[in-house]
């Protein structure tokens, strides 16, 4: 799958600071079609609504730890739904333990990034998802 600048991306994080940082970095990389959600729960609804409207999200960048619905639960919801089984999903987390990576991989994550990270690292991770 080739990268396109207007790919529809949803950034999910409960911290406004991190949403802004991720959007800044995605903007630096060249992406222009960015939307944000402050938890997994509204993100799940936004993803379904966008699909119904015929303008589905093409890439999800999500934090792991969120109060209402975690990034892991959002990922599981997506993978349990046939139309979202292949939706690219990049998980971002502050917790760098190996066990977390294993859990996310088992749940079907496309790639995994540990905070802190630079725009360059984000770009490299995205390139691996969309080779």
């Amino acid at each position, binding site marked *: 799958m080739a990268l396109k600048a207007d790919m529809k991306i949803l950034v999910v994080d409960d*911290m*406004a*600071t*991190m949403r*802004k*940082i991720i959007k*800044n970095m995605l903007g630096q990389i060249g992406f222009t079609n960015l939307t944000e959600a402050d938890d997994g729960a509204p993100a799940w609804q936004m993803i379904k609504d966008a699909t119904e409207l015929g303008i589905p999200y093409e890439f999800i960048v999500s934090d792991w730890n969120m109060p209402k619905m975690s990034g892991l639960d959002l990922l599981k919801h997506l993978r349990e739904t046939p139309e979202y089984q292949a939706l690219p999903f990049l998980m971002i*987390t*502050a*917790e*760098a*333990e190996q066990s977390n990576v294993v859990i996310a991989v088992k749940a079907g994550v496309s790639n995994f990034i*540990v*905070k*802190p*990270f*630079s725009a360059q690292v984000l770009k490299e991770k995205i390139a691996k998802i969309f080779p």
Partner: protein
Amino acid sequence: MSVSSNFIEFSKPFVEASKNVFETMIFTKLETQKPIIKKDSTSKGDISAILGVTGNLNKDGVEVPYKGMLVLSWPYETYLKVASAMLMETHTKYSSEIADVGGEISNMVMGNAKRTLAEMGYTSSMAIPSLIEGPAHNLTYPNGTTVILIPINSAHGPFYMEICYIED
């Protein structure tokens, strides 16, 4: 009051994690000063991010529960510069827009330190960060704990790290 060797060992990953976080996301190197034992509960900075951690230390087959706390405390001027660098936009006044910057930094420092702590035999469960704003505010430490204060210099100005550690 002396500081246990476990406390010194426990505090090192936080210093290293802070250096990593600041270098990667705030584009500045940190210069840590000599740690001192803090004797009062008044913040050194105007804005403090506080994050608790609990878990067990498994050393030589013995499991000991512990409690810890990380405090990062910034003078207003430093906080504004740190937030501006991190968000890539200029902030000259403290506002709700930058209120979670401190919490996010402490979250990343704790998350990063957790990996090293795990290698050292510590299991750890992070709390949710809280933020206190206002000059010389009061900090509440876990009962009976010693508090290590580490002054830190950066290109954005000075700030302070505090670490508490107590074994139950």
